[in-house]
C-alpha cells in the first residue's frame, strides 16, 4: 500500500509544481518569448525525444557523467578511508585539500583544457573534481561516527587495522557514503551540462542548451533541455535510492520495509 501511496503523492507534488510554473508563465510578468509557459516547454521536451541528434548529445553527456562519477568514487572512497582512519595523513593534507575545494570549475575549464584538451577528458576531469568532495566528506564523517565498540569487537578478535577498516568501518559508513554518492550524482550531472555550456565544445545536452540560448526565442528550447537534465537527475536518484534499499536493508530507515 505504501509504495503506491508514495507514488501518488509524488505525482501530486509534480502536478502542483507544474501548475505553479504554468501560472507564473501565464501571469504575464514578461513576454512569452522570454518565459514560455511550462506546457510549451514540456511539449518541446517530449518532441526532443524523437530527435536522434539530440539523443546522441544526451548520450554523450550521460557517458561523461558516468565516467566522471565513477572516477570520483574510485578516488574519494579510498582517500576518505585513508583520511578518516589515519589522522596524520588527514592533518598533513588538510590545508591542501581545503585550499583546492573551493576552486570553481568555471575558472578551471581553460586551464584543464590546456592540459587535457577540449574534449571528453576535460569534461570528465572537471566532473570528477567537483563530485569527489561529497563522497570524500561523507566517508570521513561516516568513519568518525562508527560505533567504537563495534570496532573494538573486531580488534578483540585479533583482526588488524585494515580488517577493522574494511569489515566494520566501511559497512557501517556505507549508507552514509551512498548518501554522498547521491549528492555527487546530481553534482556530476550539473557539471557535465554546465561544463558543456561554459566550454562550448563538442556535443551534449549542455551544447544543445548553449546553442538554443543563441536564438532570439531560444528560452523554450533551453528550458526543454533543463527538463531533460532534471528528468535525468530524477531517474538517477531513483535508481540510487533503489540500490540503497537493496544493499542496506539494515539501516533504521529501511528496516521497516522488510
Amino acid at each position, binding site marked *: 500500500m505504501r509504495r503506491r501511496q508514495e507514488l501518488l503523492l509524488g505525482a501530486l507534488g509534480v502536478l502542483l509544481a507544474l501548475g505553479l510554473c504554468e501560472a507564473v508563465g501565464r501571469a504575464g510578468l514578461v513576454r512569452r518569448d522570454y518565459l514560455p509557459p511550462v506546457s510549451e516547454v514540456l511539449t518541446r521536451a517530449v518532441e526532443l525525444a524523437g530527435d536522434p541528434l539530440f539523443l546522441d548529445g544526451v548520450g554523450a553527456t550521460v557517458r561523461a557523467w558516468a565516467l566522471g562519477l565513477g572516477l570520483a568514487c574510485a578516488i574519494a572512497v579510498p582517500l576518505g578511508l585513508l583520511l578518516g582512519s589515519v589522522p596524520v595523513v588527514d592533518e598533513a593534507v588538510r590545508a591542501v585539500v581545503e585550499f583546492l575545494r573551493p576552486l570553481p570549475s568555471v575558472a578551471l575549464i581553460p586551464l584543464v583544457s590546456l592540459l587535457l584538451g577540449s574534449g571528453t577528458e576535460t569534461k570528465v576531469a572537471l566532473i570528477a573534481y567537483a563530485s569527489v568532495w561529497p563522497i570524500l566528506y561523507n566517508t570521513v564523517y561516516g568513519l568518525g561516527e562508527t560505533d567504537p565498540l563495534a570496532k573494538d569487537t573486531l580488534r578483540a578478535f585479533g583482526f588488524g587495522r585494515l580488517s577493522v577498516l574494511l569489515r566494520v568501518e566501511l559497512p557501517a559508513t556505507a549508507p552514509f557514503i551512498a548518501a554522498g554518492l547521491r549528492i555527487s550524482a546530481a553534482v556530476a550531472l550539473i557539471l557535465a551540462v554546465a561544463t558543456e555550456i561554459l566550454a562550448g565544445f563538442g556535443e551534449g545536452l549542455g551544447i544543445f542548451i548553449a546553442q538554443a540560448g543563441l536564438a532570439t526565442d531560444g528560452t523554450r528550447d533551453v528550458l526543454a533541455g533543463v527538463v531533460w537534465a532534471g528528468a535525468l537527475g530524477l531517474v538517477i536518484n531513483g535508481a540510487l535510492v533503489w540500490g540503497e534499499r537493496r544493499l542496506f536493508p539494515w*539501516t533504521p530507515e529501511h528496516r521497516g520495509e522488510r
Partner: protein
Amino acid sequence: MKRGRAAASRGALLRWTVLATAIAAWQLTTRTHPSVYFPPPTDIARHTHTLWFSGPPTHAFLTPAATENILPSLARMTTGFVIAAIAGIALGTALGRSRRAHALCNPVLQFARAVPPPALVPVFVVLLDFGTRMQVASIVFSAVWPVLINTADGVRNTDPLRVDVAAVLRLNRTERLRFLFLPSALPRIFAGLRLSLSLCLVLMVFSELLPGTANGIGFTLTDAQSRSDLLTVWAALVLLGALGYVLNTVLLAVEKRLLGRGDR
C-alpha cells in the same frame, strides 16, 4: 577525546609543511617549465599583493579594488550560505520526519537538484531583479542540497530505540528536534555544511557571471579570463582557496564546540 595542545600544534606544523612543500614544488615546476598559463607562485603572490593588499594601513592594507570586489563577494557568499544552511536543515528535517512530506516533495526536489544553474539564467532574469537578490538566489539554489540531503538522511536514520524513547517521554515536536533528531543528525549535517560552504564559494563565482554584475571576486576572475590576464585569474583562484580554507576552519571550530563530546 581531548587532544593535547602539543598534538594540535604538531598537526598544524605538519599541515603547513606539506602546504609549503606543495608550493615549493609548484614554484620549481613553473620555473623549469615556464608557461603563461601557469605562472610561478611568487609572481602570483606579488600580483595578489599589488592588486588587493597594497592599500593604506588605514584601510587594513586593502586596496580599493579589494574593498570593491572582495567584500561584496563575501557578503553574497555568506548570505547565501546562511540561507542555504537554514533552509537545508529545516527542509531536510521536515522531509526526514514526515514520510508524507517526503513523498510529496521528493520528485520535484530531485528534479530541481539536477538542474544546471547556468541554464536557468533566462528564468532568473525573468523572476528576479539584477543584483544581490539574483546572485544570492542562485547560490542558495545549488548550495542547499548537500545540507538538505544529509540532514534528511541523518534524521531518518536516527536510532529507532531513541525515537521510541522520545515517544515515551512524550517530547513534543520541537523538543524532539532539539533533543533527538538534530543532535543525532548533527555529524551528517556538518558534513553537509562543509560541502555546502565550499560550494557557496564556487557558486559565488558563478553568480557573478549572471547578467548585470559589475563587481566581485568572481567577476574579477571571469573578466580577467576574457582579457587573458592570467595573473589576475590565478590571484583570484588563490584568494578563493585561501577564503575556502579560512571559512572551513571557522566552521570546524563551530563543529568542534557542538560535536565536542568525544567518542561514544
